[in-house]
């Protein structure tokens, strides 16, 4: 699904973030203006410390900026209370972590159900797992799954609530390249079939070719934004 330019999901103005680490001030973000649209696949690219994780955390309601504003649809996220942010994450945001963060004591199906049980209009856990190609491993515990499979469960868990945005922080970082491609194919499929805004952090430039837009961050600034005229599919990627 192509990006719907008339449907912005996130609008950020003048975002800054300053960490105080003892005596030193670290400027993680130095004024970011950004709009992200429905159905878009966005890759955030940049070296360590460029601010991409900070940006993702602020968008996901995990962190508050030092300055500037973020709107989700017509809600202002900046300045929201802890409870409001929790509800925001619960209803609208799907997270995929580098290290999967599955609950080891729950099966694949139950890991997804843990989220769908508290969501407003989720899909069935089985449906979400079928979407990521794990329809046959519903009752396996994380210990019985490979790394790639665990990450796909994590993606199923993230999308099962039908979120407006899928935030993925280095989702292939802990995987070998062949397994990584499978995971990216799943993300691509979710983005295409569900029209979920997908924001993907990586420092792997090769992955950028599958995005609608590639936003390169450097030292807390947006260095440039590139729109891919032709998107590659995940299985064409290599690194």
């Amino acid at each position: 699904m192509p990006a719907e330019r008339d449907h912005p999901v996130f609008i950020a103005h003048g975002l800054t973030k300053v960490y105080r680490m003892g005596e030193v001030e670290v400027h993680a973000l130095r004024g970011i203006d950004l709009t992200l649209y429905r159905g878009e696949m966005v890759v955030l690219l940049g070296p360590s410390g460029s601010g991409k994780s900070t940006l993702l955390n602020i968008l996901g309601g995990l962190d508050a900026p030092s300055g500037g504003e973020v709107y989700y649809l017509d809600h202002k996220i900046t300045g929201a209370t802890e409870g409001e942010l929790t509800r925001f994450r619960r209803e609208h945001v799907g997270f995929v972590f580098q290290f999967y963060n599955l609950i080891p004591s729950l099966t694949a199906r139950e890991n997804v159900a843990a989220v769908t049980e508290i969501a407003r209009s989720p899909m069935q856990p089985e449906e979400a797992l079928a979407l990521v190609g794990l329809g046959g491993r519903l009752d396996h515990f994380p210990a019985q799954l490979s790394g790639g499979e665990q990450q796909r469960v994590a993606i199923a868990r993230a999308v099962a609530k039908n979120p407006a945005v899928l935030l993925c922080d280095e989702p292939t970082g802990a995987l070998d390249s062949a397994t990584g491609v499978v995971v990216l194919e799943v993300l691509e499929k979710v983005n295409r079939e569900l029209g979920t805004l997908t924001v993907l952090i990586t420092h792997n430039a090769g992955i950028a070719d599958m995005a609608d837009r590639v936003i390169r961050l450097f030292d807390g600034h947006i260095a440039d934004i590139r729109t891919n005229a032709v998107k590659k599919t995940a299985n064409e990627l290599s690194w």
Partner: protein
Amino acid sequence: MRALDRKLFRDLWHMRGQVLAIAAVIMGGVATMVMSLSTYDSLAGTRDRFYAEYRFADVFAGLKRAPEPVAERLAAIPGVEVLETRVRAGVKLEVEGFTDPITGLILSLPDTGEAQLNRVHLRRGRSVRPWSADEVVLSDTFADAHGFQPGDRLAAIIHGKRKTLTVVGVAVSPEYVYQIAPGAMFPDFKRYGVLWMGRSALAAAYDMEGAFNQVSLALARDAREQDVIDRVDAVLATYGGTGAYGRGDQFSNRFLSEELKQLRTTATVFPAIFLGVAAFLLNIVLSRLIALQRDQIAILKAFGYSYVEIGVHYVKLVLVMTVIGVAAGLALGAWFGQGLAHVYSETTFRFPYLDYELRPGVGLIALAIAAFAAVSGTLLSVTRAVRLPPAEGMRPEIPPAYHTSLVERLGLSRWLAAPSRMVLRHIGRHPLKSLLTVFGIACACGLMMVGNYQRGAIDFMVDVQFRQASREDLGLAFIDPTSGRALHELAALPGVDHVEGYRDVPAILRSGQYRHRASVFGIQPEGQLHRSLDRDLKPVAVPPGGVVLTDHLAYEILHVKPGDMLTVEVLEGSRPVRQVPVLGITKQYLGVSAYMQQDSLNALMREGNTVSGAYLAVQPGAEDQLYADLHARPRVLGMVANKAAIQSFYATIGEFILFYNLIATLLAGAIGFGVVYNSARIALSERGRELASLRVLGFTRAEIAYILLGELGLLTLAAIPVGFIVGVGLVGILVMAFQSELYRLPVLLTPENYAMGATVVVVSALLSGLLLWRRLGRLDLIAVLKTRE
């Protein structure tokens, strides 16, 4: 400072909450041990010093009356080093404004010079002047109970004659460290007093001029006590001797020894339980704590640190916690110990001084036990962690394999949401860990029950003693054995409902090598007031022709059973020696006794219907008039009012129990909280990442708290019934260890005991839950996205 040591202190600071909780567990164990042992050492040391400094005699003998020259014959007995004769008079005392009967004992002091043996230590005032006629020194318990000061006056009925006495001093004596009226169960400082008076004045009042009726002697170093006793008895046989006895049978000393023996048991059993539990918990907690440092150990190894260096590092870490705990335990234990020794010397034992003694060895033992428990727990975990190749240690731990829980397999999963399943599976995944946590919490519950058990047990014992066995309102003793006809006179007194006579004969009970000096009580077979109880505490008539013994006396002291023959060596009158069959066993928690039917005892003594005293049931409200009537009768010597005895008992031990309960509550509470908090805190460390992930996924703080605290709550609930079992077991151990001649505790736990045990666990859990709730609010949600474990 080396980097590793810096890490040590940072780590300690970082987990200061847990450090304090662990230290609290150690402190609880160490404090109990230090308190009990130091109190024992202090009292035993003080006793020994007091006995030596004030020349406590080795052998004592009472007799009817012997002319003074007989003393020379006694002094000539080989092995006797010092000998002193005295006059000893049982009296009734009158204190203005106090109507209850008061019994007293007056002992003679030499007219000139200091006593050779059994010297008194003056607390206030002075000793009696040479040849003074009316001056007395009072025992400090009695003086304090009535507020007597030197210069005050009181009256005594000596040998039927009323005499006004002037108090000149207040003293304590090694002979009366523990003061209790003959026939009473408990000390009663208001209603029993010991007095000292000049020899000539007392002899004149008691008709003992030129004679004596009590002798004390000190033995030469190499003398054999029993030989001397036999020879003394031989000399005094014709003067109405009632049998010489050594320190072992001396009343105050026997009680003091028994009490100290019990205190030493306390000093062994309680700390063994507390410190054992504390060590066990420490071991669990630390091994889990170290297991969490797995990745750090791997990194240290990757740097090239050796196993030994890493081991030393973690041992240092736990030793710091141990030392904090032991130091706090020593301080607290010493403080409690001083308090306890003080309470003892206020309520039970009177010493002129109290040397508080905390042997360095006690502290070292405590440190050694705690350190051993801590270090062994640590090394086990460190070894496990160090065995891993560094790279593996740094990789995320493979997700632990989970299974569906039993509850779910039973088909209940339909009703369980994912968080509940997580709780159940986590418990099922680590059954050993869960069991240990349950057991740890259960121990705290059990300790609390042991600590609070005494109150209910004592209530029960008092109830059995005073409402089942000794139901008389008043027990009185005649000056000499008297014809049973005297009972009619008593029954005719206004206010007396019912009278039962008793015969009471001092004797040595012997069976083979076992002996015991006690009174044989002749009671009425169908008596309503004084009854013997069977095993189920039902009154049972004493059968004719033999003795019924208290269970402890029969089985533990004399080693006889019903059907066996017992030798009774009477120490009164013609001192007959008789063989008597043991006909039964009676259940008794306080003291030990031998009962016969009064008729049978009279027959054994070859006498007619003779009584030593009587038990009276008194109409309510008639007490004061009756006391006055009895007081005026010269043949009535002592009176013990039961209600007053119970009240004084509670007054005496109330403070004691309160003190003990407070300490037990504090210590069990500290241990309980230490365990629960640590279990929860470690669970949080182990599962923090999981919970933070859920927070990121949109779970509220309450929802993740449910997962973490749900598990804690479930384990806590499971621990309570286990704790009850542990408590009953610990009380059982305590009861076994505490059997003595003075009393045997019943295995009896009241609903309050259970409630207290459960409360300490629940409160600890709630408090821990509250602290964790705050921590859950500070979970680092961002870190969880990046870090693996």
